[in-house]
């Protein structure tokens, strides 16, 4: 069966005063129906830009989709105008943003903000839309939904606002939800609640979820498949068990080693490893492998030739010159 969404060779560039910033540079990602796909990587790896490019929510200009296809249910979204995309936004693909504190309009009631999406995509009267909105708020477990529907965002806590965002994204029952770091701005206990809720909703509506995160813990808990991005490129892609059990790319290994562990006894306790350096600025990026400057296995070839993404096991792809010499597995 064809995937629900297939991103092929996506390149999203931004013009800046210093030159062209290649935020996303040839990314392939596909999501199947009903699947949860996690996209991980440090800040500045192009995860958000990739997601925002799908519905052209990046600022254009200065942003521009320079190349690639985004095929949703057999239809390429890249050539569509913003007006044509409006039919797909919220109706087919829903969005949950990172910052519940700033992603809701402060001068409109939360009810109005959910209902306007319903009225836009479904022929509903104001009253019907209000009823549906209350229903959605109940679904995301907002207590006293009938009363809260008329409240303004500042009357909600961060976690409650993210529930409102989820209700908003789910209102039109889209086939795909893109959640851009939905828990990053929340404290840990609320994070777990929101992830559970998301999981719950996904099962109830049978939609696919593209979850963008930089928390490996979140990945392990929620994903079926994982895409690891680095500096605007996909460096590894694998089913979640393979990724944690047999990470191949040095970057993925670094990410996994940087998860704090509480299961080791005191004798094995070591200092938490971090990946040295930081993500390069993607204006005139280095030739060859973009991770090479930070990679402890870097060889001469790494700074000369770009490694291509290739399949090393069924469903497991990665882009590294070390190939299937399982570099870090021993450690």
């Amino acid at each position, binding site marked *: 069966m064809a995937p629900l969404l297939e991103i092929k060779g996506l390149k999203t560039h931004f013009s800046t005063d210093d030159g062209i910033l290649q935020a996303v540079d040839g990314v392939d990602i596909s999501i199947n129906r009903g699947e949860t796909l996690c996209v991980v990587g440090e800040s500045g790896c192009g995860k958000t830009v990739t997601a925002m490019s799908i519905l052209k929510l990046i600022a254009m200009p200065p942003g521009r989709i320079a190349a690639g296809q985004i095929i949703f249910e057999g239809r390429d979204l890249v050539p569509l105008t913003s007006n044509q995309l409006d039919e797909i936004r919220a109706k087919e693909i829903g969005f949950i943003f990172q910052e519940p504190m700033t992603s809701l309009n*402060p001068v409109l009631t939360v009810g109005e903000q959910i209902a306007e999406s319903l009225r836009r995509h479904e022929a509903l009267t104001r009253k019907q839309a209000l009823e549906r909105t209350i229903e959605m708020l109940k679904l995301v477990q907002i207590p006293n939904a009938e009363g809260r529907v008329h409240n303004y965002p500042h009357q909600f806590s961060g976690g409650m606002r993210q529930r409102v965002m989820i209700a908003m994204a789910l209102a039109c029952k889209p086939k795909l939800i893109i959640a851009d770091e939905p828990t990053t701005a929340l404290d840990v206990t609320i994070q777990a609640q929101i992830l559970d809720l998301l999981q719950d909703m996904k099962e109830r509506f049978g939609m696919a979820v593209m979850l963008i995160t930089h928390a490996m813990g979140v990945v392990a808990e929620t994903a079926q498949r994982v895409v690891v991005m680095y500096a605007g490129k996909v460096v590894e892609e694998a089913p979640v068990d393979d990724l944690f059990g047999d990470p191949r790319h040095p970057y993925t290994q670094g990410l996994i080693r940087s998860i704090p562990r509480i299961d080791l006894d005191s004798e094995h306790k070591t200092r938490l490893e971090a990946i040295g350096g930081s993500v390069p600025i993607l204006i005139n990026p280095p030739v060859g492998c973009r991770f090479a400057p930070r990679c402890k296995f870097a060889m001469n070839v790494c700074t000369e030739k770009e490694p291509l993404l290739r399949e090393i096991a069924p469903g497991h792809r990665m882009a590294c010159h070390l190939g299937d010499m399982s570099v870090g597995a021993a450690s």
Partner: protein
Amino acid sequence: MSQYVLRRLLIAVPSLLGISLVLFVVLALAPGDPFSELTTNPNVPPEVAASLRAKFGLDDPIYLRYLHWLSAMLHGDWGFSFVSRMDVDQLILQRLPATLYVIGSAQLLALLIAIPVGVYAATKPYSLFDQVANTLAFVGFSLPTFFTGILFILIFSITLDWLPFVYTTDIKATGIRWVLEMIRQAIMPVAVLGLFQAASMTRFVRSAMLDVIRLDYVTTARAKGLGQAKVIVKHVMRNAMIPVVTLIALQMPAVFGGAIVTEQIFRIPGIGSLLISSILSNDTPVVMAVTFVFACLVVLFNLIADVLYGWLDPRISFR
């Protein structure tokens, strides 16, 4: 809400008292009073002048004179203009319609230009439209009204002879002709004042819109597929207009002040020209009354701005 307004009005009382005291003292310290010309007029015997001064209490100590003025004011007596030979409140009421007509129209014109232009320019920043609008706005508020006013008179009244350059209140026509004439003579002052206001307001609207347009909730709105027009009007403008409305309300008293110059240029018999002529002829009661009215307007529009702010922004509650 009504409690808030009431409390604000009560707080305004001491500040208005303070303002009136300062105004009164400054005017008392200024050289000249309504009777100063009597002493230099050879037809008036010095003892008559002195007895008139005594009769009107002009030689009383300043605090007594202030208390006199205050108690009269509280009784609704605004004083008497010795120059115009009529009550000050009558005089002000007579001059008010011309000022309200010109300033109101100018402000309306400014809004009708500034909001659409500012909003459209912000949706397409650095486009040709934006650049042209920005340049014109910059030119607009760099040119003072006393310059553009005279320029307009030169072009439209003297060279082209299309419009009258003296504003009259006694137009010798009736019915529709009178209305047309009223409009015709207001075109230049309204345009001069309105365009000047529009220039700075456009830039303000544009920057307020640009501040909001990049915010996260605008992206949220776009992700709902609402369409550009609805996103701009419902989500961006609604928020961007909060500071704009406040600015306009706070600017209103300043507009009255700014109109003084325009009224002088076009000879509009409004409040502004009344103030100028009263200052020149030492008509202290009128100067005092008009400046005090301006002070009241400042206090009033501050209150209006605060109330509007709370009405537009649900995050603000009146306590």
